[in-house]
């Protein structure tokens, strides 16, 4: 059986405009496609990735416009569609004033206290 990996993502909006992705959300997609068994836990500022109203469009330098801005909330929604559990630390949502109705469907707020249980359900726990 494939090892189950819990990806904990805390670093947020780091290089996402240059990369046109969050590189760990992207990597999670790519690894899932290659057969990995993964779950995602977003904490800290990364919980904001699940907010539906993000819009990073319009960046330009000189006459060079960015045509493929990152759409990280959509990438998360596609992970949910692929069967990847996407968890959000509830305390971090509350600390940032993010209401449940702002979030993509399928994202699962959990209390920080549940992390030991979540870790125990996975063979590897990777912090990004």
């Amino acid at each position, binding site marked *: 059986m494939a090892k189950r990996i819990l990806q904990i993502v805390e670093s947020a909006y780091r290089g996402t405009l240059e990369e046109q992705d969050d590189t760990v959300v992207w990597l999670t997609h790519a690894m899932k496609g290659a057969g990995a068994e993964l779950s995602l836990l977003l904490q800290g500022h990364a919980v904001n990735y699940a907010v539906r109203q993000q819009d990073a469009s319009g960046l330009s330098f000189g006459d060079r416009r960015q045509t493929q801005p990152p759409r990280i909330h959509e990438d998360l929604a596609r992970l949910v569609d692929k069967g990847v559990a996407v968890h959000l630390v509830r305390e971090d949502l509350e600390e940032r004033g993010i209401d449940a109705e702002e979030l993509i469907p399928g994202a699962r707020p959990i209390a920080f206290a549940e992390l030991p249980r979540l870790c125990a359900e*996975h063979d590897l*726990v990777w912090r990004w």
Partner: protein
Amino acid sequence: MAQYLLIESRDPLSDADAARFQELAARLARAGNEVTFFLVQNGVFPARRGARREQLARLAGHGIQVLADDFSLRERGIAEDRLAPGVEAAPLSVVIDLMESGSRALWH
């Protein structure tokens, strides 16, 4: 129960997230897991006895083994006899020891 190795390369003096990582260590220990908290790089700053935020002793109180990379300590002039209670100097090879024995290894 499982073994966990939490490697802390940052410090609460400059990084608010470091407290959250310590909290995770405490929760894993309270859940019955064997936890090692390994300080490296600037993560060793709170290990100096008298540092203003000596939360490391609280981790040791949870039964967590708190170790500090001896190279990082020496690099910063923190003598081994000036470590906070509950913290021991250790070689970085301990990380490999624990990975060999199957600890789930997380880096902050």
